């Protein structure tokens, strides 16, 4: 975890909607694992006030490659303000030979760094894209991925086999759809895998993060043991059997 300035060294468009930026970051920020990310300010003002989350998708010679939508404009040599890496690396087990990654309505970019490690260890990686995630461009993914697409969780027809096959499963969905999506997935996994081992199923929790260091208490995730832990420090992936999903459902208290 460090706070420093980075330079955007290269900008490459990988599809109509996606660009990848090569960032020259501080040395302490070059050590980043899959699942960790940066909180970034690009403006010289306090508008917007909070930082943006930038997702690393690769590493090259000390530079970190992040993925951003093309609707944002960046310039080579632009200096940005970078906080991170935020959170813990995804707990990918050495023994995992079959890795199942699921993106519900979200970019699967957060998985790419971890998936590279898994592929390097000769694991098989299956990526399931659901809803809008289907439109993520194939050319931005490693060719070794097996990719499955579905419009809804319910129309993901291979889910019985794919869930049965996996050694580890990671799912991402954006708030406020994360909890409903994980509830359905957890139910399926419990049904299909009867005796669920710990470390089998992880969900990604991505509330807005004002501080990124566990100080502001704005990103707490409620666990079954009564603890409330900051996603920015203990996450962003949580073993879904440990999370009290129902207590993490948003309420609707008004004014």
């Amino acid at each position: 975890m460090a706070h420093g300035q980075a330079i955007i060294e290269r900008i490459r468009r990988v599809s109509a909607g996606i660009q990848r930026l090569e960032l020259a970051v501080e040395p302490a920020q070059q050590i980043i694992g899959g699942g960790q990310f940066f909180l970034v300010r690009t403006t010289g003002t306090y508008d917007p006030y909070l930082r943006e989350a930038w997702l690393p998708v690769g590493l090259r010679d000390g530079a970190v490659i992040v993925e951003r939508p093309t609707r944002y404009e960046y310039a080579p040599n632009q200096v940005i303000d970078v906080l991170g890496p935020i959170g813990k690396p995804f707990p990918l087990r050495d023994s995992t030979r079959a890795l199942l990654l699921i993106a519900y309505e979200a970019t699967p970019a957060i998985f790419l760094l971890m998936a590279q490690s898994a592929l390097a260890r000769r694991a098989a990686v299956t990526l399931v894209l659901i809803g809008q995630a289907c439109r993520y461009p194939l050319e931005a993914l490693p060719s070794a991925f097996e990719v499955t697409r579905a419009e809804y969780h319910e129309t993901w027809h291979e889910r019985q086999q794919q869930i049965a096959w996996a050694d580890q499963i990671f799912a991402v969905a954006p708030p406020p759809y994360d909890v409903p999506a994980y509830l359905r997935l957890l139910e399926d996994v419990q049904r299909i895998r009867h005796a669920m081992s710990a470390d089998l199923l992880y969900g990604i929790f991505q509330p807005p993060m004002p501080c990124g260091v566990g100080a502001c208490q704005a990103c707490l995730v409620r666990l079954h043991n009564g603890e409330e832990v900051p996603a920015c420090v203990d996450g962003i992936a949580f073993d879904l059997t440990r999370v009290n999903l129902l207590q993490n459902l948003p309420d609707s208290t008004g004014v």
Partner: protein
Amino acid sequence: MFEITAGKSALRLNRPLMGASGAFGFAGEYSKLIDLSLLGALVTNPISLKPRRAANSTRVVPLDSGVLIHTGLPNGGIHKMHRQYAARWRTSPIPIVMHLIGSAEDLAECATFLDQQSEIASIELGINDTLTAREVRTVVATVRARTQLPLLAKLPLYQAVNVAAAAADGGADALVVAAPPRGTARDPLSGQLVGGRLYGTWLKPLAVRLVGQLAPRVGVPIIGCGGIHHPDDVRDFFEAGAKAVQLDSVVWVRPDMVAAIANALSGAELTRAAGALADEWRPYGETAERRTPLIVAPPPPFVPPPPEI
């Protein structure tokens, strides 16, 4: 149609939308830029019984968010202002609400005078932020006794919760929540700390909360005011319980937003004209649009651009 009644008289607004005191001037200052008939009513800049000079040094301090402005509320006094503007007020396409400031006695004298005039549809009292609830009740009641006109009370932000009931008890027919608060900032020209009223988008969440607290508690309609810059902001005030809203500094920074908000309020659908260029389509605000809601945490949902044709 939004209506504020006071005995036999009534303030009738075609749209629940008013131009706030201090922002729109005394009459038609904005008529070259804005179709003022889109508003339900126009509230004049503050008017006092006796003339007031401009503050010895006028102060405009740009802030990191918004601006501090101190004018001293200059005006020629109610009689001179009436002589100067009566003709324009009479021919105004929308009702004119006169914003009055001063002591209880001054306000009473102004109200007595206005009760004899026909150009003014309603009075809005600027409630000084140093008054206690009891004093607010007295000020409003004193004015109430002198006029048949519908009476609005514009409450100071900090004291709004403390004095709202008193203003209603005193006889206000509606409460405006709230007037912009005062602050202190360093004037870049003089290098001094100076005081003045504060304007900006940040006012909205403060005012919406007060409206939400007061609407269920007071028996008169609440008119929301503070930081409105977008039709969505009006929606927030209405959902919190306001029956109408006032626009203030948005008219300086985005005069076109007044029409955008008015049209949104009448349910007019705003679509891009066939063949219009992207930058000509600005129903409400491509150039100063609100940011995409949020985003500090990863991963963003993948929202691909429309397919290339």
